[in-house]
């Protein structure tokens, strides 16, 4: 269970990216986060694993206060939270397998990982994860030789290497074509349903939200403006979330 309580983030320039946001996510839920560009979706997701330090508020995960965790505790917490990014964020010049193995960095002994030594089980596991997302044959290519869709699958494999209990996906399909978008979303759905991993996923397209999410929350200028089932987003709600002038497409 993830509990967000009165979360506020004010950036150094004074931008209030999150404004007193509170909600809860049950285990095994697929939660979509929607909202206009600049509404604070990325900020919210990054606050949860403290890539961004929240200004105020609390984040409790299974009863543990993430916002108060020390550096060592953070390492332990983060390794259970996988993250998938819009721009994949692979290390381009490294091999695919190295990118995937990076998902184990929170587990392995730091001293050995610095000289690029991973336990044999981890390497085998990395190949397995690549098989799961269907690109095992690319394991020893450089990451930047892969297409966008393939890179995102590597990103998912990297998150899976963490044996995650939760995955934060920040617009995982925003830079992919619709067909690829569905294939990537299917992997996330599979991980959510089969492995019981909680998924928080920010999305731009409502049809994806309807198709994959159990529940949706919406942000507008940092404020939580909607929390409910995807089907409940009717025209009225839509205008509330996206503004008066917005037109529904798709």
């Amino acid at each position, binding site marked *: 269970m993830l509990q967000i309580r009165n979360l506020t983030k004010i950036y150094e320039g004074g931008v209030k990216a999150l404004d007193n946001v509170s909600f809860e996510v049950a285990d095994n839920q697929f939660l979509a986060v929607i909202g206009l560009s600049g509404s604070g979706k990325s900020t919210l997701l990054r606050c949860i694993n403290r890539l961004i330090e929240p200004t105020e508020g609390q984040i409790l995960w299974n009863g543990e206060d993430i916002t108060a965790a020390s550096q060592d505790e953070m390492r332990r917490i*983060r390794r259970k939270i996988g*993250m998938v990014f819009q*721009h994949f964020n692979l290390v381009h*010049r490294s091999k695919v397998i190295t990118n995937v193995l990076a998902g184990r*960095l*929170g587990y392995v002994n730091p*001293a050995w990982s610095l000289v690029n030594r991973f*336990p044999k089980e981890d390497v085998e596991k990395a190949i397995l994860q690549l098989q799961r997302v269907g690109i095992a044959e690319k394991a020893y290519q450089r990451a930047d030789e892969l297409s966008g869709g393939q890179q995102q699958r590597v990103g998912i494999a990297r998150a899976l*290497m963490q044996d995650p209990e939760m995955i934060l996906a920040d617009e995982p399909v925003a830079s992919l074509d619709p067909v690829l978008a569905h294939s990537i979303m299917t992997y996330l759905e599979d991980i959510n349903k089969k492995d019981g991993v909680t998924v928080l996923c920010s999305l731009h397209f409502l049809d994806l939200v309807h198709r994959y999410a159990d529940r949706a929350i919406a942000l507008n200028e940092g404020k939580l403006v909607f929390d409910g089932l995807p089907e409940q987003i009717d025209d009225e709600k839509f205008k509330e979330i996206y503004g008066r002038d917005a037109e529904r497409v798709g």
Partner: protein
Amino acid sequence: MKNNKKASPWKSLRVGLIALLCMVVLAYGFQITRVDLQELRSESRQASLIRVIRALAKPDILEHDQVEEVVNLPIYVPCPEDGSIPSGPEQDKSEPYLAVSPTCASPGDVVQVEGFNFAPYTEGPLRFVPGSDPDNIVTLGRDNAETDADGHFIVDMELPNRPSDDVQYIRATLRRNVGAPHLTQTAHDTWDKIVETVFMALLATVFGTMLAIPLSFIAARNLMAPVRSPLASISLSVLGWPIGIVVGYMAVRWVGGLSASIGSTIWINVASVVISPVLIAFGLSWALPQVETTTSPSIQLRLARIGVLILAVLVGFYGLFQLASLAINSGGMLEETLGSFGFVGYFLFQLGDIVAIITPALGALAVGGTLSSVLGRIGQRSSEKMPVSGLKILNIILATVTGATVLGLLGQLVEWMYQIGQPMYTLWIPLSVGGASGFLLALFTKAKDALPIGMVIYYITRTFLNALRSVEALVMAIVFVIAVGIGPFAGVLALGLHTIVSLAKLYSEQVESIMTGPLEAVAATGANRLQTIVYAVVPQIIPPYISYTMYRWDINVRMSTIIGFVGGGGIGFLLQQNINLLNYRGASAQMLAIAVVVATMDYISSVLRERTI
């Protein structure tokens, strides 16, 4: 935007004024740099310019072996007063011989010297030999004789003002090339020096790069900005450095003594060098399990692991000492037995010496760094766990001690350098000022606040780099020549230091411009800071690092060609010497060598750079 359309008179006036100002600046520049074309037109300048250019066009690289034909001819200057000229020994007309008419003359008169039977097409000086000794090596005059196809020449020669009653001589020394051309001594010297030059550049680049890499990380804002620690942690890790350095130095010195007392025969060396890594590998694999088990290990196990780690490190240093000893021993042996490949032995010997010298320093730094990070972590833990009031007191004590230690040490450094001899200024005042500022810092910060220590280190490093970077390598070379004496070593040190500071700057700019996405992604997996750097930063900076290293290598080759001008070794020394001796043909050979080397290195490095990107 609107102002641009109309040409206002003010604007034209301003442009005019700026142009005028530029003219004035230029005119002033002409005056102080003494631009003087008149000087170029003066005849003597032109004559010497032509001479130099002609010499430069004939670099002193190839020469022939020469045979000389030397013939002396007696002459009386002035004619004897009694008019009698004693006839010398009859000249052998089948050999080369000289004839002069008239056979005696007054000083300053012009006589005609004729040579017969010399080898055809040879040339050489025709000189007046003062004094009555035909073998006198002192000669006067500047005339030159050149034989025709029959080995005959005629030269008009002005007699010098050396009157003597005795017989004096005219000497023709005609030289002729024999055999194939071969390299001159100058060419050999130039080759030696150019090799020295290239290796100076190589060493400076290699060592400079190795030290610039770690520096570049702590001079990169994006890596240092997130580094924040509570005061207790900062104080403890600062204290850890000096304590660790002293402890480490003593421990490694002790190991060194042990290694020396165990023996330095080559067999003991080899055995130690082979066995130590095995022992270390065992120790490490036991003390550092690859996967952290979920249950945290018991205290006893942890202590045992730490003990084994320390032992492994000591064994490692023992191995290093033995390696050094092995290199020195085998190097000495090889140097004697290998003959012309003796330089390999010399290299090994020097390498061993370097290892033996830097091992204690390495140990001191390693233990310093380790102790600092261990103490830092203890500080971090206690800041997290302790109640605020207790922490505040701890902070105050630690910060006071740390401040006093740091400034006290700095004061002692000043004392050591300037020998002021007044402990009031170099010990007590720094101690109390340091202690007081630490105390105040602890008093006015919140106990649990994480202070931006990363930025402090960043600014200190940047200032240090910028200050050193503004000192030219040539100036550094002068300093090092004073410190370690004239020679290539001073040049290597100067170039190396300059390489460190300038590369660290360039590298750190590359670190600052990496893509942040991968950094974020790796950090999100739970990787610690060092892991993040190795997995997300290093792969991104490898190509620019290589290309900057190549660029620096280029600069170092250029610099090392002229660093000899200030005594830093390399070809510059030779070049300067030849210029000072007006030996322009020699200088020309060296300039040619420099041009060839610089162009070649330029080409190689550009090819390599293309490959890596």
